[in-house]
């Protein structure tokens, strides 16, 4: 099982290196999604299946979708058709596809060898996690909810369309 960890770690490091050296934001986002998937696999191997699921759902799903939305909104109109043509070239998606295929191979290996339930025995499952989360850490849950509410209100305040009267109030 250690081989799975080291292969996933290598994929994560390569993807992250490609993220910080890439020029195109969309390609960097693709590499970062693959990096987050490999980190989710590492979480699973480290006995944290719930955290692995949240990594895929929240990080690779929600947060990266926010980044993709912003990149698409900021894309100048003139380059849209050209970049769409470039996206169909093989060398644009070859790197993320190979690295994601490595992760898929690891997944198939884990599923076929029938050892899919080993981290649950070795680690902490969702039951013990939620018992601790809503027991001694319930104050942290409340603080996290307040933080998310503050993030919601702050994002709405910053991203609303700027009317002249609102701009006067903003400038202070």
């Amino acid at each position: 099982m250690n081989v799975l960890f080291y292969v996933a770690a290598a994929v994560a490091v390569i993807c992250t290196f490609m993220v910080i050296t890439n020029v195109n934001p969309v390609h960097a986002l693709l590499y970062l999604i693959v990096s987050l998937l490999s980190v989710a696999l590492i979480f699973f191997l480290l006995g944290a299946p719930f955290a692995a699921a949240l990594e895929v759902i929240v990080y690779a799903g929600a947060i990266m979708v926010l980044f993709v939305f912003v990149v698409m909104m900021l894309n100048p109109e003139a380059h849209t058709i050209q970049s769409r043509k470039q996206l169909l070239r093989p060398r644009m998606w070859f790197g993320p596809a190979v690295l994601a295929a490595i992760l898929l191979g690891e997944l198939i290996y884990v599923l076929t060898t029938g050892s899919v339930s080993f981290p649950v025995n070795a680690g902490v499952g969702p039951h013990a996690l939620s018992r601790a989360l809503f027991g001694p850490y319930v104050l942290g849950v409340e603080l996290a909810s307040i933080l998310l509410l503050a993030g919601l209100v702050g994002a709405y305040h910053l991203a609303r369309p700027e009317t002249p009267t609102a701009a006067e109030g903003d400038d202070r």
Partner: protein
Amino acid sequence: MISIPTAHALFLAGILFLLGLVGVMVRRNIIFILLGLEIMLNASGLAFIAAGFHWGRPDGQIMFLFILAMAAAEVSVGLALVLHLYHRIHTLDADQADRMRG
């Protein structure tokens, strides 16, 4: 059956954190700076998960949940600031935003 050394997991977390830090310090595109911040937060979450695995306690995963909530709030406000900045200075270069106005 599974015996990943905790030091190796922490080593991986350190490498990812350093890569994110280099990304934040080297790149000047503000989208890439936010991506570097995400990489650093994710690496710190990996360190917490590895520590929780080492002691067999749920506390590491709970800290990861809090980091996740904090990253979600941070990225929503950060991207709203990016949109605001782009509408004001019409570029994503962070060095162009060196003057505060108002």
